């Protein structure tokens, strides 16, 4: 319980303090790293309790249970919180090692961590909305980090589209309250089964649209490429490595957790949308000419796998979705942080990322692909699409390598990246290989996370 409070309090206080400090000074950026590190420690302590003793529940403000807002840490939430704060920490360490910075950066990233942790550990759907909005508000500001005209235009689109997405989410929250008379997730899940099916389907569609916009799935992806290509690499890494996790978590929590009947009903549609996302993202990524654009479209394609896995459902499907989200977040963070640099080591990192995206061992990407295969093995059509997607990703992933590292340097003499610029991507590469060589812990964590969803127990 203390760990749960600390995981929120540390970044909250630190974020507010850091916001008034100047992050152009390296010391302040390291302070942000320390704050995120403290959050990580609290989360790890919490995770140990959750995985050994079961979910940790806390009711805020000493209200009696059933009246106060609940914070609820279960295996799924803790896994996503650890993943997101982990990638945020990597991004901030990378930024701290660099030389350029912007005034508000450190405070904003730490506040984003509050939003993410709160979202993942909230046991109340309205509280989920509040933290969701906090995470988004900081990301709106982060998206215009750098302040070139192009970033501003993209940031405006990002803000407007995601705001509309959150209002759709809010409409669904209101409907859930009307239908079930409660906001507590555990009780919503109980009472939803007795709800009017028509209302439940409308609610489910609202949640699906809200989280698909966040994930950047195929029909809702239109904002994504401009934002990811024009934002600074570190911001693109944060957006795709930690913020996009909200989408996958939301689909799992609200789809499989609260509305399992409706999820089953829509399984076919989800798989079709996911497959469309995989093929669309893959084809467009192949047709692009710069590394960052390819990565942006690849992000559209990769989330398709998560949706296919959720659509397949069952314990195997949900576990596959969790594994894929983890692996994809690590890949994207590493590649975005390494993008645009040169040198032998960076070339190696990009090659490793390419192998991981394409799903070639020993990089961790193959664990994710394998899980999706395993979940979908009884459906030959899905396996075919997943294979096609892998082939496309192999092509574009090596195109990235070709464009960034085989083409002679334009203009000025080639400048090799210094160790400060590739230390973090290299460490992430180590993690990716480690997870690929020894995937058992990853699979066990994902299975435990998926087991908390009622849709996973047939």
């Amino acid at each position, binding site marked *: 319980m203390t760990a749960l409070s600390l995981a929120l309090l540390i970044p909250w206080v630190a974020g507010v303090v850091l916001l008034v400090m100047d992050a152009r000074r390296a010391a302040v950026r390291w302070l942000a790293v320390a704050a995120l590190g403290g959050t990580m420690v609290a989360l790890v302590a919490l995770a140990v309790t959750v995985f050994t003793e079961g979910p940790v529940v806390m009711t805020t403000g000493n209200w009696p249970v059933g009246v106060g807002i609940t914070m609820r840490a279960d295996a799924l939430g803790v896994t996503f919180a650890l993943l997101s704060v982990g990638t945020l920490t990597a991004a901030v360490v990378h930024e701290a090692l660099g030389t350029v910075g912007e005034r508000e950066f450190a405070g904003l990233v730490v506040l984003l961590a509050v939003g993410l942790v709160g979202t993942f550990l909230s046991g109340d759907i*309205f509280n989920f909305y*509040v933290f969701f*909005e906090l995470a988004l*508000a900081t990301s*709106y*500001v982060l998206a*215009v980090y750098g*302040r070139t*005209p*192009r970033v*501003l*235009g993209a*940031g*405006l689109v990002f*803000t*407007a589209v995601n*705001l*509309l997405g959150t*209002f759709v989410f*809010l*409409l669904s*929250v*209101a*409907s859930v*309250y*009307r239908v079930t*008379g409660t*906001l507590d997730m555990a009780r919503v899940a109980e009472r939803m089964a007795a709800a009017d099916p028509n209302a439940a389907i409308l609610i489910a569609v609202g949640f699906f649209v809200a989280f698909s916009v966040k994930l950047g799935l195929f029909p809702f992806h239109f904002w994504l490429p401009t934002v990811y290509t024009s934002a600074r690499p570190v911001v693109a890494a944060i957006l795709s490595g930690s913020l996009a996790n909200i989408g996958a978590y939301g689909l799992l929590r609200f789809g499989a957790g609260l509305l399992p009947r409706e999820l089953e009903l829509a399984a076919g549609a989800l798989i079709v949308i996911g497959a469309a996302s995989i093929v669309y993202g893959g084809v467009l990524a192949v047709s692009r000419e710069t590394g960052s654009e390819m990565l942006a479209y690849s992000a559209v394609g990769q989330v398709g796998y998560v949706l296919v896995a959720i659509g397949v459902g069952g314990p195997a499907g949900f576990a596959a979705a969790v594994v894929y989200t983890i692996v994809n977040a690590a890949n994207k963070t590493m590649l975005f942080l390494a993008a645009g640099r040169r040198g032998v080591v960076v070339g190696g990192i990009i090659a490793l990322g390419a192998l991981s995206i394409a799903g070639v061992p020993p990089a961790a990407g193959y664990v994710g692909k394998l899980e999706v295969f395993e979940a979908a093995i009884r459906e030959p059509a899905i396996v075919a699409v997943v294979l096609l997607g892998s082939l496309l990703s192999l092509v574009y992933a090596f195109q990235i390598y070709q464009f960034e590292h085989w083409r*002679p*340097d*334009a*203009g000025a003499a080639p400048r090799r990246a210094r160790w400060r610029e590739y230390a973090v991507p290299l460490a992430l590469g180590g993690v990716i290989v480690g997870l690929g060589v020894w995937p058992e812990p990853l699979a066990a964590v994902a299975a435990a996370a998926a087991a908390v969803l009622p849709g996973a127990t047939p």
Partner: protein
Amino acid sequence: VNLVFALAAAILFGIGAYLVLHRDLVRLVLGVVVISQAAVLTLLAASLERGAPAIYPLPRVTLSDPLSQAMALTAIVIGMAVTALLLVLVLRVATAFQTGQLEEVAEEEVSLEAQLEEAHAEAREDEEAAAR
């Protein structure tokens, strides 16, 4: 009463959607504001019972549902904060591009990218010439 609420929220959402689809950036912001009001109205309409204010509960009096009012208040505050953020963003775009029209922003971006392309092409030619 519920039908009235539903109609009002639907009309607000429609007006908001119409404004969001406009090319004028300020209208885009106004559209988002109107849609947020539609969401707030839906929150209020979702209240489970209607009656006396919940601030001073007397016995045997139906109270209005305080929870949905609390949610509506929270949503209003959050909506105000993000609207302020969005307006600042529009201001930045307007000063950077010297226009409040989305079309002109897009044109400006296209011309910026064309410049970048040219620079790239020149660099490539230079390096090919150097290679020869």
